[in-house]
C-alpha cells in the first residue's frame, strides 16, 4: 500500500504538468468558444452560447478548407504508405550490412530536419523563376508558363510533395524495422516452402507488419489532417484561398483576424474530429492487431 502511494507521488508531477499546460487551456478554450471575444471588432465580451457553433456549421469556408485538407491528406498518405512499404521491402531484401546502414542514414535525413527548413527548401527549388526543380520540369516540357506555388491547382500537389518528402523516410524506416523484426524461423520456413517475390511479401511480410502499418497509418493521418507549417511558410493559404487547410483557417481566424471566440470553436471542432476518428480507429481496427483479440 505504501509503495502504491509513493508510486502515485512520482507520477503526480507529470500528471499535474499535463493538466496545467494542456488540459486547462483546453477547458479555457471551451469557455472562449461560447463568447464573442474578438480583438478586431471591439465591444463588450459576452456569452453568445451556440452562436459560434452555428456560424461554423454554416460557414462555407470550413467545408472548403476540409476539402483542401483531404486533397492533400489522402494522396500524401497513400503515397507514403505505398512507397514506404516497397522501399522498406527493397532495403529488407538487401539485408542489414554496413552499406545498407549508410544508405538508410542518408535516406532518413528529413526526419530530423525542421519543418521550417524543409518548407523553405521546397519553396526555393520549386520557385517560379529561380527554382532548380522548376527549371528541370520545364526542360522536360512540363510546367509551361505556370509554377507550383502560384497555381491554385498545382499548389495542393506541391504540399503533397513536401509532406511526402518529409515523412516518407519516417514511414519507410518504421516498416523496415518491423520487417527486420520478423522471426527468422518464419522467414526460413517460408523460403523452404518456396515462397518468393511478391507472393512472399503478400503472405509473410505484410501480415507480420500489419500492426505496425495500422499504427503508422494512424500517426500519419492525425498529423497530416493538421498540416500547417509549410502552408504558413510557403503560400500562406494562397494563391487566393487555394491552400487554406482546416488548421490554417483556424490559425488565420485566431492570430490574423483575432476572432478568438470563433477560432476556439474551430480548434475544438478539429480536436473532436481527430479524437473521435482515432478512438473509432483504435477500437474497431487497431485493437484487433495491436492488443490481440
Amino acid at each position: 500500500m505504501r509503495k502504491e502511494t509513493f508510486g502515485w507521488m512520482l507520477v503526480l508531477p507529470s500528471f499535474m504538468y499535463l493538466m496545467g499546460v494542456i488540459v486547462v487551456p483546453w477547458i479555457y478554450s471551451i469557455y472562449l468558444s461560447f463568447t464573442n471575444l474578438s480583438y478586431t471588432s471591439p465591444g463588450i465580451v459576452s456569452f453568445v452560447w451556440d452562436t459560434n457553433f452555428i456560424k461554423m456549421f454554416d460557414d462555407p469556408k470550413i467545408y472548403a478548407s476540409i476539402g483542401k485538407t483531404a486533397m492533400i491528406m489522402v494522396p500524401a498518405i497513400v503515397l507514403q504508405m505505398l512507397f514506404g512499404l516497397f522501399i522498406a521491402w527493397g532495403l529488407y531484401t538487401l539485408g542489414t550490412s554496413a552499406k545498407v546502414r549508410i544508405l538508410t542514414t542518408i535516406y532518413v535525413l528529413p526526419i530530423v530536419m525542421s519543418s521550417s527548413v524543409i518548407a523553405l527548401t521546397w519553396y526555393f527549388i520549386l520557385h517560379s523563376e529561380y527554382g532548380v526543380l522548376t527549371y528541370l520540369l520545364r526542360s522536360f516540357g512540363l510546367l509551361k508558363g505556370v509554377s507550383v506555388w502560384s497555381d491554385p491547382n498545382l499548389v495542393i500537389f506541391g504540399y503533397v510533395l513536401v509532406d511526402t518528402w518529409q515523412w516518407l523516410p519516417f514511414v519507410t524506416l518504421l516498416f523496415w524495422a518491423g520487417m527486420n523484426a520478423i522471426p527468422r524461423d518464419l522467414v526460413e520456413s517460408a523460403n523452404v516452402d518456396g515462397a518468393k517475390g511478391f507472393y512472399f511479401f503478400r503472405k509473410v511480410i505484410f501480415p507480420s507488419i500489419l500492426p505496425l502499418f495500422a499504427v503508422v497509418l494512424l500517426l500519419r493521418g492525425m498529423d497530416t489532417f493538421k498540416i500547417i507549417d509549410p502552408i504558413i511558410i510557403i503560400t500562406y493559404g494562397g494563391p487566393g484561398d487555394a491552400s487554406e487547410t482546416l488548421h490554417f483557417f483556424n490559425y488565420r481566424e485566431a492570430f490574423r483576424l483575432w476572432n478568438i471566440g470563433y477560432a476556439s470553436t474551430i480548434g475544438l471542432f478539429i480536436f473532436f474530429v481527430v479524437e473521435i476518428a482515432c478512438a473509432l480507429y483504435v477500437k474497431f481496427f487497431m485493437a484487433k492487431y495491436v492488443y490481440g483479440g
Partner: protein
Amino acid sequence: MGRKVIYIVATVLVAFIIINIFPFLWLVITSFKTRADTLTTVPKLFFEPTFSNYISAFAERGFTVYLVNSLIIALGTTALTVLLAFPAAYVFSRMKLKGDNHMFFVILTTRMGPGVLVAVPIFLMFSSLGLWDTHFVVILLHTAFNLAFAIWLIKGFIDDVPRDLDEAAWLDKLNPLKTAFRIIMPLCGPGIAITALFVFVMSWNEFLYALLLTGNKAKTLPVAIAGLVTPHGTLWGQIAAVAVLTSIPVLLTAYLLQRYIVRGLTFGAIKG
C-alpha cells in the same frame, strides 16, 4: 533471391535515395552562392563559392541571438522533460497502476489537438501576465508535448534493468524515490541520454508554437529563417546558410542516434 534481382533492387534504391536527398544538397550548394548566382533562371551548378551568406546572417542580421534562443529553449525543454519524465517512467515500469495500459491513447491525445487550440488560451493567459515572448513559455509548451513521449521511451529503457535490483533496494528500506534516482537512474544513463537527445531535436525543430508564442526577443531559428522570406527580393543564400546551420546540430544528433532512431520513433515499441 537471385543475385541479379538484388543488384536491380540495390541500383534502384541507391538512385532513389540520391534523388531524394537532392533538395538538401541544393540547399547546401545555395548557401555558398552569391546573390547574383542564386537568382539565375538557369540554375548554376558551378560557381565561385563564398562564405558571405554565413557571415552576413550571423554578424549583421543578428542570427546569433536566435541561435542562443534556440539553444536555451531546447536545453531547457530537455532538462525539464527528463526531470519530470524519469520518476513517472520508473513507476510505469515497476508498478501496476490502474489505467496505465491507456498510456498509448494518452500520448495520442496530447498530439490530437491542433496547435492553435492550445496556443490561443496560452497566448491570452501569458500575455496578460507579461510572459509572452519569453523562453519560459516556449519551454513550458515544448515540455508538455514531449512529456508523454519521454515517459514512454524511458519506461522502455527501465524495463531492461533487472527488477531484482529494486527489490533489494526496497528490502533495504530505500523508498521508491531514492531507488529510482540512486539505483536505477545511473544504470539507464544511456537510455536517458538517448531520450534527452530526441527531446532536444524536437524542441530545436519545432515551428508552430515558437511562432505563435514569441515576438522578437525569444524567437527561435526555425521561426527566424521563415521570416527572411519577403515579397520583394528574398535573400535565398542567407536563408540557405541559416537553414544549413540549423540542421547541423540535429544531423549530428541523428548520427549519434542512428541505432536508436527506430526505438524513439515507435515510442519504444520496436527495439530495433
